[in-house]
């Protein structure tokens, strides 16, 4: 397997994948997220989003600050369903 520069570890998305998607016209961070599942894995974008922003800036010339971050959705870390439901339905 040829080594790659990995942007998103969770979903295994490489730099080439991101650049290709940007070339195809996905130039909004949310669009990229939905197209590639970047930031949708267990780390929820902690590792990759700042890299995607830099790649977007480099390729589109858009200032990072003008690119909105994808919305942050709870929970902050993955939590098992059993714990969340723990108030009910347990004997």
């Amino acid at each position, binding site marked *: 397997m040829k080594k790659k520069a990995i942007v998103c570890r969770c979903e295994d998305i490489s730099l080439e994948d991101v650049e290709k998607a940007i070339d*195809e*016209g*996905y130039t*909004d961070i*949310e*669009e990229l997220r*939905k*197209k590639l*599942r970047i930031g*949708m894995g*267990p780390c*929820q974008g902690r590792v990759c989003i700042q890299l995607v922003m830099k790649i977007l800036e480099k390729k589109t010339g858009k200032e990072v600050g003008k690119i909105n971050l994808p*919305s942050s*959705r*709870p*929970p902050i870390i*993955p*939590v*098992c*369903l*059993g714990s*969340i*439901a723990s*108030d*009910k*339905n347990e004997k």
Partner: protein
Amino acid sequence: MKSKADVVIIGGGISGCGLAYNLARRGVDVLVFEKNYLTSGATGACGAGIRQQWSTYENAELAIASVKIFEKLSNELGEDIEFRQGGYLVAIHDRKEMKQAIKNVEMQRTLGLQVEILDSEGINDIVPILDVKGMKAIGATFCPTDGHANPFKTTFAYANAAKRFGANIYTHTKVTSIKKDKKRITGVITDKGSVKTEIVVNAAGIWSKDIAEIVGVNTPNIPIRKEIIATERFKPMFEAMVISFKDGIYFSQQKEGQIIGGIPSPEQKPGYKTIPTISFMQHMASTLIRYAPVLKHINLLRHWTGFYDVTPDSRPILGETKNLKGFIHCHGFSGHGFMISPMVSKLLSDFIVDGKTSEVLNNLNIDRFKDKKIEHEMSTVG
């Protein structure tokens, strides 16, 4: 930006992009304005299900026809939309529900839909991880050709194909005004410039009410906040979407392995607030593990809100406004816009290009709310 177009579509969700494709394919010079990015509204928060088992004829008809299109859509658009037909298992909890189910199935079968009624044992043949006792089911209906697809990829595929046929899609472009003379549309003004057109399609989802207000048209839609969860991915265990009209829950395992599902929140109120609620998260988790106890150790990964653009009868508003030529409604999908979008956009494009109308379009016109008696869609979840 272009200064002139045959049709301007407001809204870059599944409805807008689907219609843009169907129009562009037929040679119409079409333009889409999206104030944010493509799929930034309800499409982007969608639960991804595709169901044909409805209680009203119009919804069933639209859904059945849409599935026929979905089956070939990846090929047609040249991009994988991840359509999969794992079926929908609709739980039946009591005799009253059983009665309604039998009635629905009869109607659905007259439309040619393959759908069966299962007893409680039959449920585990379809979804082995369900605890039939825990979900308090006495049976279920099952349609094997129901399923799901990826709403983002479908929208993007429609948009890309539309562009190949010459459509122009402007994202991050907000419609600020719509020009008209006495009885017809004449143009659209955006924050990036204006364009002349005689036809405007309002496919703006929960913002369609504001768009309609610009031209003085009142719509009865209200936005209802809905919440959805997604779990971490795990090995595929079942293919069917499980739903219950009584509990309001729906969930399925996606192609990538995560479970996506929703349920009405105990705090559900109309409005534009997008903050998720803790009560939903707990209600969803406890109901989900009541249905499938083996999921207790599966991690909840994300929890988000979206909106249903809900009409008084939970059916969409489609077609032209009587007193305003060229102003076409394509909204009010009440939570099931994605699954009927292929057929809706085909019907509307037929209407715009050929002037062709149909029973469904006529029945779903905005004027139906003037009648006192409207037929309500019973089969809703989430």
